[in-house]
C-alpha cells in the first residue's frame, strides 16, 4: 500500500499530461455558443435608434416568417466588412432586423450611409442587455429566427461571402 502511494504523484502528473496533450492536439473552440439555439427568443422591447425605423421587440419575430437578427455596432469594423453579405441576403428576400450595441444615433446614421442599410428595424441596446440575454458574446453575430420566434442558427463573427449560402439555406429550412 505504502509503495503504491509513492507512485501517486506520477499518476497525478500523467493525468495532467494527458489533459494538456489533448488540449494541444485539439485546441479548445474559443467561440462562445449560445445555449438558446433551438429555444425561443427571450422577451425584450428595444427603443428605436435610427430615424424613420422602428425599434425591435420579440413579437416582431412571431409573424410566421423566418428573419435574420443581426447583432452589430457602428464602431465595429468586422460589422462594416459583413455589410455587403447582409445586403445580398436582403436581396434574396430575407428580412433582416438588428440590435445595435452601445451605439449612438449620429454614429449609426453615418454607418448606414457608408455601408448600406439592409435593416427593417433596429433596436437600441445601450447596455448590451438584450445581446447577453440572447447569448451573444460579441459583435457581429447573426441569428436565424424562425416564424415562431425560435433561434434556429447562431453565426458568430462576420458573415463571409462563403457563409451566405449556409445562412440562406437555414432560413429556407426554417418555417
Amino acid at each position, binding site marked *: 500500500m505504502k*509503495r503504491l502511494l*509513492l*507512485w501517486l*504523484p*506520477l499518476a497525478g*502528473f*500523467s493525468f*495532467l*499530461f494527458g*489533459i*494538456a*496533450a*489533448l*488540449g*494541444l492536439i*485539439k*485546441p*479548445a*473552440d*474559443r467561440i*462562445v455558443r449560445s445555449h438558446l439555439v433551438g429555444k425561443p427568443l427571450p422577451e425584450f422591447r428595444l427603443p428605436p435608434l435610427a430615424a424613420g425605423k422602428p425599434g425591435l421587440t420579440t413579437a416582431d419575430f412571431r409573424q410566421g416568417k423566418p428573419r435574420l437578427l443581426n447583432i452589430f455596432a457602428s464602431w465595429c469594423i468586422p460589422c462594416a466588412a459583413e455589410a455587403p453579405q447582409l445586403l445580398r441576403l436582403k436581396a434574396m428576400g430575407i428580412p433582416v432586423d438588428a440590435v445595435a450595441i452601445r451605439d*449612438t444615433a*449620429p454614429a449609426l446614421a453615418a454607418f448606414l450611409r457608408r455601408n448600406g442599410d439592409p435593416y427593417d428595424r433596429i433596436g437600441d441596446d445601450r447596455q448590451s442587455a438584450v445581446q447577453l440575454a440572447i447569448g451573444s458574446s460579441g459583435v457581429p453575430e447573426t441569428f436565424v429566427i424562425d416564424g415562431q420566434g425560435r433561434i434556429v442558427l447562431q453565426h458568430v463573427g462576420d458573415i463571409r461571402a462563403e457563409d451566405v449560402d449556409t445562412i440562406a439555406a437555414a432560413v429556407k429550412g426554417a418555417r
Partner: protein
Amino acid sequence: MIAEAGLAALWFAAALAALQLVLAAAAVARGQEALVGGVRPVAILQGGFAAAAMAALIAVFLASDMSVRVVVENSAAAKPWIYKFAGAWGNHEGSMLLWVTILGLAGGAVAILERRLDARTLIATLGAQAALALGFYAFLLFSSNPFDRVSPAPPDGLGLNPLLQDPGLAFHPPTLYVGYVGISVAFSFAVGALVTGQVGPAFAKAMRPWVLAAWIFLTIGITAGSYWAYYELGWGGWWFWDPVENASLMPWLAATALLHSVTVLATRDGLRAWTVMLAVVAFSMSMIGTFLVRSGILTSVHAFAVDPRRGAFILALLALYIGGALALFGARIGTVRAGTTFEPVSREGGLVINNLLLSVILGVVLIGTLYPLVAASFGVQLSVGPPFFNKAAGPIALALVVVMAAGPLIRWRRDDAGQLTGRLTWPIAATCFAAAALVAFGPIPVLPTIGLSLAAGLAVASILPVIRRHPLRTPLFTWGMVVAHLGIAVSLAGMASDSAFTKETLLAVTVGQPARVGPFTVRLDGIKPVIGEGWSALEARLSATRDDDLTVLRPQSRFFSTPPTSTSESAIATFWDGQLYTVLGQPDANGRWQLRLWWKPFVTLIWLGGALVALGGALSLIGRWRRERRARMRDYWA
C-alpha cells in the same frame, strides 16, 4: 556578426551541457568521485556561454540590428535605450533565452559555491541540472532560435507592446526568473539525492540556502509584478488570478512549504520523503507555468505569441523531467531510511500543518488554473474567476495565518498545549480587540474582518520570539523569520483593508466639475495633449483635495505609434493612509470625460509586506551564511 556569435555561444553551451551530463552519469555509475573536479569547470563554462548568448541578444537589441527577426518584431530604432535593452526579454525567444541562461548560471553557481554536499550527490546534482538545461537549449535551438535572421532587413521594426514599455520590464522578468528558474537547483538536489540515496540533515543544510535565495527573488518578483499590474493595467486591482500570475504563485507556494520542511529535515531529520517531493514539485510548478504561458493553451491577459508546436516541445520536456523525477521518486524513495518521528504538539507538528495548508492552497490554485483545460477536454467551456480562488483559497490562507502565529512559539520535539495557549495570550488578545473594534466601528464583510483581526494577532505573535531577548545576541535568521512573518501580517492587513474599505466611482465629467471619492474631492481642471518618446497622449489635470490639502494628478490616455495601440496610464497619489488611483477614459459627444477614481486605504501595505517578507528571507540567508562561515573557521583552526 554579433547574432552569429550569440548562436555559436548557445550551441557551445548546449554541447557543454551534454558533456556535463555524460561526465556526471559516468562518474555516478562507476563511483568515480574524483570526476567532480572535471564536472565543476564544465558547469561553470556552460553557464558562461549561456550568459554570453544572452549578452549577444541584448547587444543586437541595443544596436537595433533589423536583420534579426526578434528585433524586427519587438523593437524599433526610435525606442528609448531602456526599452531596447529590456525588449531583449520582452518576447518569446528572448524570454526563453533568459530562462535557460539563469538555469545555466544557477548550475554554474552550484559548481562554484557548493562545498557541503558529498561529492557523489553533488555530481549527480550537476548532472540533473545539465539534463534540464540540455532540453531547454534544444527547445531554443530547434524551435525558438532568438538569432534567426530576416532577409532583406526591413528599415525599421514593429515596436514593443506598449503595455511592456515601462521601466518595470527591465527589472521584473529577470528578478522573477532568478527565483522561478533558480528553484531548479532544489529540483536537481532532490534528483541527485534520489540517485545516491543521501537524504538527511547534511543534504537539507546544503539545499536550504539555494531554496532561500530563489525564494527571495520569487517573492520580490511576485510583489513587484503585482504592483506593476496594479498601476499599468489601470484596473485598480493588484491580483487577477490570471494563469500567468498563478504560474508564478504556484512555485512560490511550493518553495515556501519547502523552506519550512527543509528546516525540519535540517534540524530534526524528519520529513525526508516529503522534502524531496516538495523540491521536485517546486520546480515542476515552474516548468508547468512556463508551459501554460508559452503554449497559449489557456487564455490570459499576458497574451504572448503562441505556437502549438512550441507547446508540444515544452510538454515533451515536462514529461521527461517531471515524469522522470516522479518515477525516480517512486522507485528510489523507498530506499531512503525513514527519518525521525515526533509528537503532534511540537514545532515539527506545526510545520507539518503549515506544509499541508500550503499544499492545499497550491492544489486549489493548480486546479483552478487547469480546470478550464480539463473541462475543455470534455467539451465544456468555462472560465474560473477570482470568486472561486478567493472563496477556496482565502479561508485556508487565514487558517495558515493562525498556524503561522503559533508555530514559532512551539518548542521542537514536544510541547504542552496548555503552556502554548499561555504564550499565545497577547496575540489572541490583539485579535479579539481588533475584531471588536472593527465590528463596533462599522460592519464590513466577514472575510476582511477576520483578515484584519488575524493580521493584528499575527503581527503581535510574530515579534514575540525576539521579545525580552538581546537584539544583537538573537541569531540573524531568527530575525529573518520574525521580519518575514511580520511582513505576511502587514500584507494581509493591506489586502483586507483594500477589499473592505475601497471606494470606487466611475463618472463622466466636464472640465471644472468636481467629483467625490472617499474623503477626496477631485476636480477636472483641464485636458491637454502631451508628446513623449514614441507616443502622444491626452493628459488630464486633476486636483484632489482632502481637508484643504491639494494634490495634483495627471492620468493619461496614451497613443503609441509603433505598434499603433492606446493604453491608459493611471495616475496614483500615495498618502500615509492609502492611495488615490485615477484613470482617464474616453470623451463622449458632449465634451464630458470618463473618469475612474478609487480611494484605496492602506493598499500600499500589500507590497510593503511583500518587501518585508523578502527582507526577512535575506536576513535569514545572511544569518545562515555567517553562522556557517564561523563554523568553518572554527574547524579550520581546530
